């Protein structure tokens, strides 16, 4: 019997099957943050239970945290009273249940999906869950990783298991090498444009092909991160030398331990003859930078293409199409080039790693943010990313250009902290969701790569990176 990587990870963690579609799957790592965990801890208290295995859990506050903290900031310094309560509740729960937390004062604190891998808590072959849909990010390490709801957070805390149904297998092959200025973000946005936001529903998507083979871990994380935007709660990539090199630097295992683990990790790939329920091949060499125009990540076009018109849209989707165009204020606009932007956001669990900041910095070096841009912010994904960037002088490049250099957190990806768009402001954003109101009530989000967002800051509109 041949098996896909997903099949292997599933079988490796199968505790029990039932006389139904569900199985009990053991969970190796559980990440927690302040937004989706309070009710789960309350559930434990109510049932008088303790976490099943303490060292499976790692917590950090990321969604609510202000990004203008500077030194000597504590949870008590948060202005927004309800945000403060939520961050303090995580402190309280982690203290009470003795769960490891990188709190708001910690130098390692960051977006959970950036912080976890770089601290070595994400290791190949693990099952990883978090009450956050972008947990698919960790699939880049050959992990079975997925977002869960709060009831499941409680269930994992209490039982170290998840009761779930097995997904189908889907393979996405990215072949070739992209042109200059085209990044992993463009590649995954293009995929979502092709298959739609429900294209991967019910499936685990394995990404492979010659592009993936040579892609960095940061790029792989960006792609797996947005699997959920293609409908797949699981995205994953086989383990190879690039994975092992990254993990060796972060895992803290001694040489013997690393070698023992590597023997297993090297088996984490789909068999040659493995059968996938769905397959799609994409030639990435011909791709242009991608930018979203609408209110769903599938509403994506080449940066220089015409925005679709009603005649391009099938009858079933016309209503959604009209609503999106109206919301985005694009009823009479033909292309994104020349469109006036107000804000730029470089950050989020999709694009706030060191590679993202380097690529953004490289296109703005020595230039100035356009006077027509009200505010351009860079929010590093974690304390370690921020420190590394500062060591490389990237903060100076951004600040000299007129960007604001902020402290780590989810920030304007979802505007749960003070970083929010005002009504009708148009934002070039490296985040993952352009839903209505996502970055602030009535705000207008265009998703793109760090390179394209940085360039938009300089020119004030969508520009050709070549």
């Amino acid at each position, binding site marked *: 019997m041949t098996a896909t990587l997903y099949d292997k990870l599933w079988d490796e963690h199968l*505790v*029990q099957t*039932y*006389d*139904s*579609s*569900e199985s*009990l799957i*053991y969970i*190796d*790592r559980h990440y927690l943050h302040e*937004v989706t965990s309070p*009710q789960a801890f309350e559930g434990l208290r109510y*049932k008088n239970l303790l976490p099943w*295995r303490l*060292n499976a859990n790692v917590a950090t506050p990321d969604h*609510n945290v202000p990004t203008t903290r500077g030194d000597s900031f504590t949870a008590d310094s948060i202005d*927004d009273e*309800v*945000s403060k*309560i939520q961050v303090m*509740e995580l402190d309280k729960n982690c203290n009470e249940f003795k769960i490891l937390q990188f709190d708001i004062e910690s130098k390692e604190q960051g977006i959970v999906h950036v912080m976890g891998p770089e601290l070595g808590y994400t*290791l190949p072959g693990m099952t990883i869950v978090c*009450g*956050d*849909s972008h947990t698919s990010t960790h699939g880049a390490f050959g992990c079975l990783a997925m*977002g*869960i*709801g*709060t*009831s*499941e957070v*409680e*269930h994992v805390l*209490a*039982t*170290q298991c998840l*009761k779930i149904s097995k997904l189908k297998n889907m393979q996405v092959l990215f072949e070739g090498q992209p042109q200059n200025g085209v990044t992993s973000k463009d590649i995954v946005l293009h995929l979502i444009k092709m298959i739609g*936001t*429900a294209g991967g*529903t*019910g499936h685990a998507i394995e990404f492979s092909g010659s592009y993936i083979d040579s892609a960095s871990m940061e790029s792989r994380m960006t792609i797996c991160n947005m699997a959920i*935007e293609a*409908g797949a*709660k699981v995205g994953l990539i086989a383990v190879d030398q690039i994975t092992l090199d990254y993990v060796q630097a972060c*895992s803290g*295992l001694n040489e013997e*331990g690393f070698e*023992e683990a590597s023997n297993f990790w090297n088996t984490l790939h789909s068999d040659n003859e493995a059968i996938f329920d769905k397959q799609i091949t994409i030639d990435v060499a011909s791709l242009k930078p991608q930018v979203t125009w609408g209110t769903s990540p599938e509403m994506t076009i080449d940066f220089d293409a015409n925005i679709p018109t009603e005649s391009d849209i099938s009858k079933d*989707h016309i209503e*959604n199409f009209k*609503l999106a165009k109206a919301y985005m204020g694009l009823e009479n606009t033909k292309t994104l080039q020349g469109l006036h932007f107000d804000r730029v956001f470089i950050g989020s669990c999709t694009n706030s790693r060191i590679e993202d900041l380097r690529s953004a910095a490289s296109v703005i070096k020595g230039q100035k943010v356009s006077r027509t841009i009200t505010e351009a912010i860079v929010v590093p994904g974690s304390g370690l990313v921020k420190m590394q960037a500062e060591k490389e002088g990237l903060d100076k490049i951004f600040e000299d250009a007129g960007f604001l250099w902020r402290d780590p957190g989810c920030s304007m990806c*979802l505007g*749960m902290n003070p970083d929010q768009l005002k009504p009708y402001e148009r934002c070039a954003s490296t985040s993952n*969701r352009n*839903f*209505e*109101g*996502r970055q602030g*009530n009535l705000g207008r989000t265009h998703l793109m790569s760090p390179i394209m967002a940085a360039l938009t800051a300089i020119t004030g509109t969508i520009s050709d990176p070549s």
Partner: protein
Amino acid sequence: MSKELIQGIAAPFDRDNIDTDQIIPTEYLKSIKKFGFGDYLFDGWRYLDKGYLGMTSDQREINTDFILNQAPYQGAKILLTRDNFGCGSSREHAVWALRDFGFEAVVASSFGDIFFNNCFKNQILPVQLSKENISKLFDLVNKSSQSFDISLVSKELRVGSDLSISFEVDDNLLDRIIYNLDDVDITMKDKASIEIFESNHRNQRPWIFK
């Protein structure tokens, strides 16, 4: 007491890809409670002003064009919609908001995977039907408001005597709603299996447990 029938007015939402950010915006995720989200359901469409956690419906500027603000849909128990309902963010608050408003079922042609799972933890039945059947239901509901009967026993959705559509759903999942079962309680019955698995797993993959 078991719940065998969901009966009530169906509110039509003729839209694809309604994401969980629309079902409940991020602002209200600052609550640390599991209840009290009904006033914020579809907040961005239901009201004309921007709200904050703690505000109630009667303090808000109502968007009278929005279906849930129109008779008889203020008391709707069933939501009828199209493709990919509940895509996006994993926030269970979306299901809590539907539940707190009074919804007991969502009928759609497809659902976001995480939302679908979350429903069964909160007594909300997601009913998945073919696109053709969904269109038939929209045709009926668009003519005049309709009450649906959804039998959890026979797995059938009925509209008056005109239409009966059967649907599929895993029996174990359905039992969670019929008998209001808690997943943690159920899994704890398998405690011994988990312990045996964990002990073997620890021996084979010691680095995970460091």
